């Protein structure tokens, strides 16, 4: 299977066709929108089936050559990107299917599907890119689509603000990425990933260049994946429609940062300090975001903080040198987080756009299918067996403990994070589905929304089999699959007994979280909860105050300076330019008199000047 271009081209074709969507009608738009992703998924399946272990490259065309930098547009499938494209197209297809039902009442139906298709096309370009520039094109493209989709309901200005915030914050990361690209292009005269990874082996471990490039790439990954300190945009991005949150801000785009680090992992291995930073950021983010999730009222914001937290786990795994564990968690997370978001969407949709948890309740009887699938998703998030979440989180924690003696405190943070995860998940689940109902159900979700939920729930359970813990009778299929890229070292082996103890401790912490939540829920009732929450709760509610911090550090000084500069000293350069241009324009325009004798005079004058110069000089 070498026709890799089909994989991103099919959703792109869907996008182009959907540009004239309003004139095609609902049925055709639905078919094109979901069908193009589905067709791409089939192509990915075929690629996977015919994949024989050797990477496949397809060079599409030679883009440009500038001095000694030559860039092609090329796609490449190896084990890592194969996993990613299957996840993107598979989960993406189910989300598209779901959104056919969710967005059915919306006027801009085909615009939505068009943007979603464009996003999938760009995400696939990002993952399949063989050169860093192709990857970057996809990187920027998904940023653009995220902006378009967050601000989808553009008539409400706050949605536009959220979209701009997302775009600007990720821009900071993208700038770091671009600088890294420039450095690599200057050093290696190529942007081909394989070539770079091979050539950089010549750098000594810990050299300044490796640390700089890895650090800059990390900056880009932090922005895209909403990790500390660039995590502030993701909770606000929930302003977009729920399928968008599911696809972009849970399953795919936010994981692009983790994918980038995994893809460039040999480079990162040359900068152990940066890897330690990655692990530290991952661990701190997961705790911080977990704390924030514990007090949120909006169901989607809980899930947003949860996403930030889970990606922290992926970064933690990458930082301790276990990229295949990170990727495994990425896969399972895609399934259960998408499931949770879509389930939340079903709840929101059924209650008539009600997102406040304190106004939900008692939906266990009213929405049974949603209840059971949400239960499975929550169980996966909490990492209870036999879900995929259990297998992946357990693997990460085990490898964290085993990686280095100093990593024990990272492990402890991970376990604390498991406690928090269990707490907020159980809280969310209980508030939504148990207790007295505070809103009534307008209409139940239709089959086109239920079927993806069921399939995603099945996926959350089945993915566990990919890398089920050995002591419990499983085999590490996934790690073996990725072994050609990420060799498994013996240093990361733990004895079976130690592994069981580690599993038991993380399981215990999860159960403790559930119990705490249940106890809190018993004593809780919305009418009693104070309208003015305590300062601690308010602090956690705002995402640990990062927005205020950035406001203080960056925005206020900047606005202060701009107010100072209101009459704009620097701008006067540009206004002067414009004024001079206008002056010359008026002067020259007067020379266009419309009279032939003047034109002929100018012609003759020009001739005289030419003659004079030629003859006299």
């Amino acid at each position, binding site marked *: 299977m070498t026709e890799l271009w089909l994989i991103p081209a099919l959703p792109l074709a869907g996008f182009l066709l959907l540009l004239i969507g309003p004139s095609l009608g609902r049925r055709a738009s639905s078919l094109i929108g979901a069908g193009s992703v589905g067709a791409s998924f089939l192509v990915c399946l075929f690629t996977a089936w015919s994949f024989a272990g050797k990477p496949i490259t397809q060079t599409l*065309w*030679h*883009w*440009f050559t500038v001095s000694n930098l030559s860039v092609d547009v090329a796609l490449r499938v190896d084990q890592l990107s194969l996993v990613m494209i299957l996840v993107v197209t598979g989960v993406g297809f189910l989300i598209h299917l779901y959104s056919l039902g969710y967005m059915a009442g919306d006027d801009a139906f085909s615009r939505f599907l068009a943007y979603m298709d464009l996003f999938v096309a760009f995400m696939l370009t990002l993952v399949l890119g063989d050169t860093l520039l192709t990857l970057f094109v996809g990187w920027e493209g998904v940023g653009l689509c995220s902006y378009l989709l967050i601000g989808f309901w553009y008539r409400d200005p706050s949605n536009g603000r959220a979209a701009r915030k997302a775009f600007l914050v990720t821009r900071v990361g993208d700038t770091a990425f671009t600088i890294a690209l420039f450095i690599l292009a200057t050093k290696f005269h190529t942007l081909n990933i394989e070539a770079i990874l091979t050539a950089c082996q010549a750098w000594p471990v810990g050299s300044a260049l490796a640390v700089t490039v890895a650090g800059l790439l990390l900056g880009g990954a932090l922005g895209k994946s909403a990790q500390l300190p660039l995590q502030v945009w993701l909770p606000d991005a929930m302003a977009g429609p729920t399928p968008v949150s599911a696809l972009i801000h849970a399953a795919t785009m936010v994981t692009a940062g983790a994918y980038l680090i995994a893809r460039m992992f040999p480079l990162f291995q040359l900068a152990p300090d940066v890897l330690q930073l990655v692990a530290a950021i991952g661990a701190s983010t997961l705790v911080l975001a977990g704390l924030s999730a514990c007090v949120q009222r909006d169901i989607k914001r809980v899930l947003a903080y949860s996403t930030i937290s889970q990606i922290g786990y992926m970064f933690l795994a990458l930082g301790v040198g276990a990229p295949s564990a990170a990727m495994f968690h990425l896969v399972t997370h895609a399934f259960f987080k998408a499931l949770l978001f879509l389930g939340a969407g079903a709840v929101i949709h059924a209650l008539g756009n009600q997102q406040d948890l304190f106004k939900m309740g008692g939906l266990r009887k009213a929405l049974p299918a949603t209840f059971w699938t949400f239960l499975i998703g929550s169980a996966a998030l909490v990492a209870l067996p036999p879900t995929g979440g259990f297998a992946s989180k357990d693997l990460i924690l085990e490898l964290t403990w085993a990686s280095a003696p100093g990593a024990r405190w990272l492990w402890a943070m991970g376990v604390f994070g498991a406690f928090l995860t269990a707490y907020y998940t159980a809280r969310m689940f209980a508030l939504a589905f148990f207790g007295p109902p505070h809103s009534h159900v307008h209409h139940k979700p239709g089959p086109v929304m239920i079927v993806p939920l069921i399939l995603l729930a099945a996926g959350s359970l089945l993915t566990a089999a990919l890398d089920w813990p050995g002591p419990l009778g499983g085999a590490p299929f996934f790690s073996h699959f990725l072994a050609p890229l990420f060799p498994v070292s013996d240093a990361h082996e733990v004895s079976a007994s130690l592994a069981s103890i580690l599993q038991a401790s993380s399981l215990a912490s999860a159960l403790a979280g559930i119990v705490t939540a249940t106890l809190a829920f018993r004593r809780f009732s919305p009418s009693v909860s104070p309208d003015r929450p305590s300062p601690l709760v308010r602090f956690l509610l705002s995402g640990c105050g990062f927005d205020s911090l950035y406001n203080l550090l960056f925005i206020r000084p900047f606005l202060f300076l701009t107010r100072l500069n209101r009459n704009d000293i620097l701008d006067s350069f540009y206004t002067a330019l414009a004024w001079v*241009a*206008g002056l*010359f*324009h008026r002067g*020259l*325009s007067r*020379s*266009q008199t*419309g009279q*032939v004798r*003047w*034109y*002929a005079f*100018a*012609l*003759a*004058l*020009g*001739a005289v*000047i*030419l*003659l004079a*110069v*030629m*003859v006299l*000089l």
Partner: protein
Amino acid sequence: MTALDLQALLPLVLTTATAIAVMIAVTITRRHGLAAWLCAAGLAAAIASIASARECAPRHISDLLVIDSFARFYSGLILAGSLVVAVLSYGYLKLRTDRHEEYYILLPLAAVGSLVIVCSANLLAFLLGLELLSICLFALIAYRRTGRGDLEAAVKYLILAGASSAFAVFGAALIYADRGSLAFGPPGLALSSPVALAGIAALLVGVGFKLALVPFHFWTPDVYQGAPAPIAGFIATVSKGAVFALALRYLSTENLLADGRIIWLLTAIAAASMLAGNLLALRQDNVKRMLAYSSIAHVGYLLIALLASASLGRPAAAIYLTAYFLASLGAFGVVGALSQPTRDADALADYRGLAWRRPFLAFTLTAMLLSLAGLPLTAGFVGKLSLVFSGVSSALWLLLSALVLGSVISIFYYLRLLAALFATPPASEPAISSPNTPWPTTAALLFLTVALLAIGLWPAPLLDLIQKMAVAAW
């Protein structure tokens, strides 16, 4: 004249045959569609015949013409431009109730004149082609005969073209007096003799007029405004392209680009054109005049390629000219598509809110304007990039600064038009309402847009072709 000569001259012969064929068809039956089809088919056949001339190239036809790969490339460009103009003219002329068929006789003849200019290896051939081109343009500019600006435009063009041709012929005579021959070098002209220098200066007047360089540019806005939109496109592209190719060939073979005076003159003219062209267009409300002024600036940019080193400058000139052809023809094509029988769509108010009324035309115009401004993803960007490369490699800092300044200024007026396209349309009836675009116009505009974007995204095939053909070995 041997058979091989004829084979080399096939594009010229076929284009002439097109004009004759249309003329004969007119005498049999007067049908607009038939004339237009014949003209287009003939021009297309001429383009195809350029390939057949490959086997006998390079070939001198009686020391007046030369058919080498350089001439073949530019011939292709000119014939393609003429073909697009012919197709666009069909839709434009259909609305007018005058006789249309003479147009399709004069258009191929103008193309023949341009081809002779491109293939000339002798000043005599250049002057002949110049005359043929100019005369056909006189009639074509005045074609609509409404008396509201077009006759004035034609008369202005007549008088000024006549004056500049007089200078050009005089220059040729002086060069002949110095050298005894009108053929192009090598060896280069003896630049110590004042007669030769005066001759070159006078010749440059003629060339400068056709290229609309400062200070010979004054006719441009009036003529473009008065001419029918497709003919304005023809003047902007084909006529300029032909004379530019000739200037390139002449200045290179006569080794004049090494002379300090010529460099000084060309630099001054180029910088003045870049700045004056863009400054004049700044607040122009009439779209055709704006495009006219911007075309002055574009030829100023092209002169950078002329002054740069041959290895980088000539490909840059070819690619920039190609991008300029596509974008200008597209822009004038949209202007023509929007026109009514009584007047052309040249007021800015005609374009307000066009994106909501006629999205295809607005999209085409957007692509064309972005290419003219030199923004990435369009062919214009590739062209400008090549120009800047060639300028940097030859350290032409003054010209490059003028290019940058000019481009910055140009973005203002291009974006002004672009913004008007997407503005909310006024509540009252639009200023101009034209019937639906006929399919040939749509097809031509679609082709231009696709070509523009394709070259912008994937310039490699065109750059290869240019490297093989347009960089001759002199």
